[in-house]
């Protein structure tokens, strides 16, 4: 079988921590332009899957191909440079820098030591930062230290830091965790905006939120795919109900 058509293809991926198989012979294919939501009970291996794709955890067996290129041995920054962006579960931003500087550092330019030392904050850089800050509702907060932002704003900032990288594949780990209801609505709006022109993998627990954004849903359970399909068929699946949705 060929997987030429897929942007990302995980095949027979297994990772074990001291014998415990957190991910077990997993197969997962993501198309270009697809928005995929991964759900599953605690310990199903959702975050581990993202860790594997972005190189934070190494696979024990199997292959991960991005645009037909084997990336299992690549370092994190190499994978990022190929076009994969990752948002962490808790907001991971640079607290001691301003919002502007957070976004500026995330631009995919001047990434070498010399490039960074003689970096020039050009008009283009400023425009790009302003453009992104507008999308993530932070354009009036550019000069504030990131540590003074609210939790929801930090989450948006991190999404903005990924957007400015312009990745082909964006991976979001619980983007609405800890957000207020109105923040969730805004975030769903934001996600619907940013999934244009790129593929997105979202891990989420909040079923209402999932319904509002999902195209295709993958249910993970004990490191394996339990079910895959659109929201209705997954919700109707008796096994899914049993392990996850039922309670």
């Amino acid at each position: 079988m060929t997987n030429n058509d897929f942007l990302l293809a995980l095949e027979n991926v297994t990772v074990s921590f001291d014998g415990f198989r957190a991910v077990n012979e997993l197969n997962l294919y993501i198309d270009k332009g697809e928005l995929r939501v991964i759900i599953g009970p605690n310990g199903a291996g959702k975050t581990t899957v993202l860790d594997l794709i972005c190189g934070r955890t190494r696979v024990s067996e199997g292959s991960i191909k991005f645009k037909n290129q084997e990336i299992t041995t690549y370092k994190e920054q190499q994978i990022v440079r190929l076009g994969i962006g990752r948002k962490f579960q808790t907001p991971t931003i640079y607290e001691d820098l301003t919002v502007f500087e957070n976004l500026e550092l995330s631009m995919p330019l001047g990434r070498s030591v010399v490039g960074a030392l003689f970096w020039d904050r050009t008009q283009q850089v400023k425009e790009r930062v302003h453009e992104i800050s507008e999308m993530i509702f932070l354009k009036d907060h550019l000069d504030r230290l990131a540590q003074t932002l609210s939790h929801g704003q930090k989450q948006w900032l991190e999404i903005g830091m990924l957007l400015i990288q312009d990745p082909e594949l964006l991976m979001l780990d619980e983007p609405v965790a800890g957000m207020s209801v109105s923040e969730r609505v805004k975030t769903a709006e934001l996600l619907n905006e940013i999934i244009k022109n790129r593929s997105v993998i979202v891990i989420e627990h909040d079923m209402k939120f999932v319904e509002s954004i999902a195209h295709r849903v993958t249910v993970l359970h004990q490191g394996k795919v339990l079910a895959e399909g659109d929201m209705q068929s997954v919700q109707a699946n008796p096994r899914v109900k049993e392990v996850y949705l039922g309670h």
Partner: protein
Amino acid sequence: MPAARSDLRVLELVGFAIIAALILVFLPLVLDIFRLNLVGKYLTYAFVAVGLVLCWGHTGILSLGQGVFFGLGGYCMAAFLKLEASSVANTKIQSTPGIPDFMDWNQITELPFFWMPFKSLTFSLIAIVVVPSILAYIIGVAMFKRRVGGVYFAIITQAIAAVMTILIVGRQGYTGGINGITDLRTLLGWDIRSDGAKYVLYFICCFLLLGTMFLARFVVDSKLGRILVAVRDQEDRVRFSGYDVSNFKIFVFCLASAIAAIGGAMFTLQVGFMSPSFVGIVPSIEMVIFCAVGGRHSLVGAVAGTLLISWGKTLFSESFPELWLFAMGGLFIAVVLAFPRGLAGLVTDQLLPRAMKANGWMRRQRQPSPAPAE
């Protein structure tokens, strides 16, 4: 509430100007050459502190082995001066004239090959910066590429400081051993022991230090400086923004080491010798304390801290020599517990906001409070 960033920049410039005026004008006017020479010695430690601000304060890499680099710079300088002082005419009473006296005492009859290039001043000046940088690069690659960091890195650098001392003391035929390299006399025929030379060297040291502070300021103000802060806060995020974190850590560690080495070379020139007692664990930790007391986030603070503590050490140990170590330990504990950002933090976080409040500045300066998230 800490002062706003633009205020801090102004404050840093003011501090810089005060330090420049102090060491370039005030101290030379009021101190005799003996005391001024002492200040010059303290200033050489300030180089190490500037390096520590970059690598510890900004990047979060605590090195407990900066004495190694200080010492290497000092030894490179001392090697040149020693060879010049060991001319055949000066050493004709030795069994092998023309080699440094400590080699002769250790039955070495020929100048070792690695001493040869130090006959050239150009080579020696380059070596002062390059030799420590190469060592720092090797340590950096070995540690940072494998993601060894934090307290492990501190312990390993401390071990390297210990190893270096043992090496220098143990190979005394090549290094001068525990006594170090002493009896340095002239630099290209210019007597560095005269009062005039001490004045000149003092001012050279001042200008080099101020230049180093400018260089450090440039690095901190560049995007690289912000990446260093980002590495300190969220190393993982920096990696997932596409940067090779280890390269940045290696860079800043090498830079800090090269700066420390310049200090070491100026030490040798002003004090007239170099010995393993400036290489080992104790001096390395002392230099970290200088930096911590002054404020490890602030270049001006670290330099001021170094001057104050060194000055205090001299005054205190002249009267109560055995109590100094206790005083220093107590001071360090006080800094960590009471004002973790050091003297500079005390000024920017406590004194300045209070002074501004008293002046009613705060009301005008205060930004509209952060809007709650909608």
